[in-house]
């Protein structure tokens, strides 16, 4: 029932209230701070900040991320397999080799990547 979620709603309400209240009160009651460009700049251990905040990532990150996604997703298929593994085994039904074949396909892909040097960071 939705009423079970009422505490969550109250919690959200309290969180929003406190955030707004603290910011609002300090804005209303507190002193105006002096602003200048030095004061507004990011604090980096007392050094002058270098470069822009939105630094570029190397393209290699994207490459590794893409490969990670592909191999990460295989787990999606392994979880249901694990869930029924014992039931199938107890009834002498084939379950190991089909999945091993599935893994084999992925391993061939991985070997291909290794051989082509995709995973070597500084090339």
């Amino acid at each position, binding site marked *: 029932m939705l009423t079970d979620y009422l505490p969550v709603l109250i919690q959200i309400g309290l969180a929003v209230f406190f955030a707004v209240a603290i910011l609002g009160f300090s804005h209303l009651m507190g002193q105006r701070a002096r602003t200048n460009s030095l004061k507004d700049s990011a604090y980096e251990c007392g050094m002058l900040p270098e470069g822009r905040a939105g630094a570029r990532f190397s393209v290699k990150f994207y490459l590794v991320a893409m490969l990670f996604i592909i191999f990460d997703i295989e787990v999606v298929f392994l979880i249901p397999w694990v869930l029924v593994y014992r039931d199938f085994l107890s009834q002498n039904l084939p379950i190991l080799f089909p999945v091993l074949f599935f893994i084999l396909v992925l391993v061939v892909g991985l070997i*291909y990547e290794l051989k082509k040097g995709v995973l070597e960071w500084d090339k």
Partner: protein
Amino acid sequence: MPSTEELQALVAANTWSALLPEILLGVLALALLAVDAFAPRRQPQTLLAAMVGQAAILAWLLFAVFTAEAGEARVYFAGSVVQTALSDWMRIFFVTCSLFTTHLALVYLRNREYPRVEYIHVSLVVTASFMLLVQSGNFLLFFVALETLTIGFYVLVAFARTSRFSLEAGLKYLVMGGFSSGILLFGIALLYGVAGNPLLPATAVDPLNFIELGAFIGAVGIDGANAAHPLVIAGSLLVLTGVLFKVGAVPFQIWVPDVYQGAPTPTTAALAVASKAGGFFVLFILLSGPFLALESLLFPVLAGVTAVTLVFGNIAPLGQQNVKRIMGLSGVAHAGVLLLGMLAAYQVPWAFHAVLFYLLVYAIASFAVFEVMAHLAPDEDADQDISHYRGLLKRHPLLGSALVIGLGSLAGIPPLAGFIAKVLIFVAAFQAGLYTLLAVAILGVVISIYYYFGWMRAAVLRELVDDGESGREPLRVTIPTKVILVALALITVVGGIFQAGLTKLVGLS
């Protein structure tokens, strides 16, 4: 937890041997990658092995089909895989297309610095998915196969990764393809939900199964027919939209010209032939299976789409100078004619065989044209202009005549096979009483002869102009290519005069 008997029955239905051709194609694709990773120097042998492997699979499929006795549909994997005589025919069609595409790819990659084995690898995976797609019996296999091949095509379209045209085409195809897949999938989700609703009559136990879904949509309860349920209507229209996107019917054709132009020529050929054939076969599966009871809803929609497709597809290529765009836009016109055949199939039983015949003839003629295009393509593959074809007949008579025969067949000029194919579909449409659409289609054919003729005229009549820029080095045409071109041209000519041989192939008498 299902009982032991149920589990055993499920496992027993997994007849992997029924899918051996597809599995072998996949294994061949993987083996190519593995060999290329370990022995990159032996590339010529690897590529030769790819061709031989495909030819062997094709030969085996042909043997299996001709020795099998005609019978009922074979159902495997608990209804996921349904093999019929027609789906077997399509499997052969796709392996043959794959062979041609491989050959085109070898021609295309000959002078270019792109990886070769990888192209063949992806193309093989796409072929295997096409073969699975045409025998899918439920939406799960249907969607997975469709997406596997679409994602493969994203790679193949963007394969020329240093060409901005190819990359841009890849991005456009990705966005439009992903968009249509999203629409299709949402339609499937709606159908799944409404067909599994226990409160409606004839609830399906497995709503993703085509047969059960068809039974559900056809059922009539106390509150009215299921076919009139808003979710059924919305879901089926969304699914239909997704499929029409793939075949490039108007108004879902926006991606066609750009993607056809930017993609490498072998990919364009595969898109034009295999993708279109797969799309139409899927349309047939859906219209004759789960959506059969929705005829009164879908017929007017499809008729409207057919009319605008025919008009757009025949007018848009006028004045176009880039031959790849011409192939793409005229492909839209061919989709219109094929849609006309699909509509006629509602009333005339043999009309779908005429559609298959049209696909076959279209494939043969298109591959002849694409072979010529692959040989004449400049370094930047997207810039293939009609002017490059000037004086081709004098420059290289074989390429020139193959081009003229291929284009003539596509245009439907009388002695060629393309003419017979068009006539068959028109007769079917006439018998089905689709007179208005028929008139539009015939008008379209007349217009299409005009733009195909512009291209032919450049090849036949125009003199070879030596403007210095369009590289006039002698064309390298290997002996296998010559054999292929002669064979394709011969089939087109002979098939037009003695059509009985070809029509028998697709079950027309």
